[in-house]
């Protein structure tokens, strides 16, 4: 099936004229139409996608060499609703941005279209990326293409739940995503897909709807590691419109992943002892050990390391992220765009708009953020968290004196049923226990599907690299991917 191809396979098929971009796009649109039960897409841009595919085929017809040089020529993709797309509704799945149609394009998506990619539509997500199950979206839950043993509906993870479900369910070849505390890697882990969160500053945040600006980073969810390398090569790079986007050179990531040529000789892989949490499922613990065995077999040296402040990462994150969110979300006042509730005076209009426009989880986080930044509490909470953040980042620096990469599970469990963690915000936050420290330290990390639990649900391992070393990180990830040899696909129950 065309829609189950990787980007690399589709690229080869387009170049050798086995099929056209028009056929590939039509196949994806048909899959999207048949998958309304997944609720992965909130907007489908079918007409513009078909037109873009015609243009792509024409460009290739005129100059096949130039088309082949564009990394994503004719490749249909999905875009997380967090990215602003010119002329297409962009709401971060929040009621408060109802009807907002930006007149500008995010840097990341601009790069995709400039390199020939075709947009299929906008993907569901947790409201303002605040969630780990895609259950906080104003547009409703996304169903994981993978189902539990008894046919029970599972969450796809979050916040990039629509992106992960669309890639896993064969609706798109790949999707953009964003990661503030695990929002790329956790849903990738829950859906058997690859999720890459680049180093902070590697991709421009211009045109991404902000959640926590010192943590937010654009990235991708793909079918395999090679596709993540192809996508990163397109979206990475400096953009003067984001003052934290760096001028580091963008290497040819796809070429770089083959540099290891299957051998990790001289590479040291650290196993952090603090990640051996209580109640870790035995399937996951065994898979983690197996991952180390695979990498050792490829020539790596496995070393025990310590990240002593790991237990403080989630509390630190749940001060810093809400603090930044409360500041970022102050812009939603009902005056300039989006929802406006009618009120008495101006303050009343603000308060009603923000009460109706934000969902419960956003209310909680804006309230906590406002609290920790308010007079009398700033030093005790916010300043304290900034200090602990340095200790957590320092842990990684110390660890990297003894190893080159760090191997951990991505999530503490496989995907859970819809509603299973609905009542307790803290239980939901614990999903990100292995991913949050990476965001605090600004490091790159990738989730690689490496196995299944006893119910046949995907499990994944996370590789963490050093800043701006995505090229080697992807290389090690591909060795892990090949050793694991995971290739099962979910049964398409949603087509019934």
């Amino acid at each position, binding site marked *: 099936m065309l829609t189950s191809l990787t980007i690399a396979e589709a690229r080869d098929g387009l170049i050798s004229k086995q099929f056209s971009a028009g056929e590939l796009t039509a196949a994806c649109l048909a899959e999207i139409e048949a998958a309304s039960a997944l609720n992965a897409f909130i907007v489908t841009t079918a007409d513009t996608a078909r037109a873009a595919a015609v243009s792509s085929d024409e460009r290739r017809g005129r100059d096949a060499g130039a088309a082949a040089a564009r990394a994503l020529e004719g490749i249909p993709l999905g875009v997380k609703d967090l990215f602003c797309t010119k002329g297409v509704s962009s709401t971060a799945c929040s009621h408060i941005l109802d009807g907002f149609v930006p007149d500008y394009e995010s840097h990341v998506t601009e790069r995709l279209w400039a390199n020939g990619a075709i947009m299929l539509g906008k993907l569901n997500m947790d409201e303002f990326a605040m969630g780990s199950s895609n259950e906080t979206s104003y547009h409703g839950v996304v169903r994981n293409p993978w189902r539990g043993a008894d046919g029970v509906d599972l969450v796809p993870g979050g916040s990039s739940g629509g992106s992960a479900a669309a890639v896993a369910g064969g609706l798109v070849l790949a999707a953009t995503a964003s990661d503030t505390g695990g929002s790329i890697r956790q849903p990738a882990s829950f859906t058997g897909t690859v999720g890459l969160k680049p180093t902070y500053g590697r991709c421009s945040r211009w045109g991404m709807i902000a959640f926590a600006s010192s943590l937010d980073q654009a990235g991708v969810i793909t079918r395999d590691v090679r596709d993540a390398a192809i996508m990163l090569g397109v979206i990475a790079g400096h953009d003067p419109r984001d003052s934290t986007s760096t001028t580091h050179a963008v290497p040819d990531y796809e070429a770089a992943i083959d540099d290891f040529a299957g051998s990790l000789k001289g590479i040291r892989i650290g196993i952090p002892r603090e990640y051996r949490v209580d109640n870790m499922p035995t399937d996951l613990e065994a898979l983690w050990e197996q991952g180390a065995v695979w990498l050792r077999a490829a020539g790596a040296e496995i070393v025990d390391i310590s990240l002593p402040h790991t237990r403080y990462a989630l509390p630190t994150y749940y001060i810093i992220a809400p603090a930044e969110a409360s500041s970022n979300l102050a812009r939603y006042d009902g005056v300039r765009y989006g929802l406006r509730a009618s009120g008495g005076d101006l303050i009343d209009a603000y308060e009603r708009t923000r009460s109706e426009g934000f969902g419960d989880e956003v209310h909680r986080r804006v*309230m906590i953020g406002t609290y920790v930044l308010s007079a009398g509490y700033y030093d005790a909470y916010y300043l304290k968290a900034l200090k602990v953040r340095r200790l957590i980042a320092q842990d990684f620096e110390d660890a990297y004196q003894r190893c080159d990469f760090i191997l951990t599970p991505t999530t503490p469990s496989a995907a859970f049923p819809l509603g299973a963690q609905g009542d307790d915000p803290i239980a939901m936050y614990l999903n990100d226990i292995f991913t949050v420290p990476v965001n605090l330290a600004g490091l790159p990390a990738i989730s690689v599907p490496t196995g299944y639990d006893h119910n046949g649900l995907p499990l994944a391992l996370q590789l963490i690299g050093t800043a701006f070393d995505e090229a080697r990180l992807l290389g090690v990830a591909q060795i892990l991917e090949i050793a694991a040899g995971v290739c099962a696909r979910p049964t398409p129950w949603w087509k019934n």
Partner: protein
Amino acid sequence: MSIDDMTVRHIARLARIQVDDVAVSALAHDMSRILDFIAELNALDTRDVLPMTGAIDIELAMREDVVTDGGYPDVILGNAPMRLPSRDDDYFAVPKVIE
């Protein structure tokens, strides 16, 4: 740490979020849970630690202080939920603030 209803109402006002009695008690409960969770940081001595304000070491980019954008009020106002009735006025409309 437990947060009382009065504090919730005060914070909600600062955050410009309207809360009814049901929302206040739910938020008081959830915020107390979350503050208990983050109180774990108090166990750490951070007296000699410098706060970390960014994810990576990067020098703030400088540029010439010149106008690089703008001049399209219709685009800016295109998403406004309410505009002044006169087409000549490029303004957002808000409820009356002066009696």
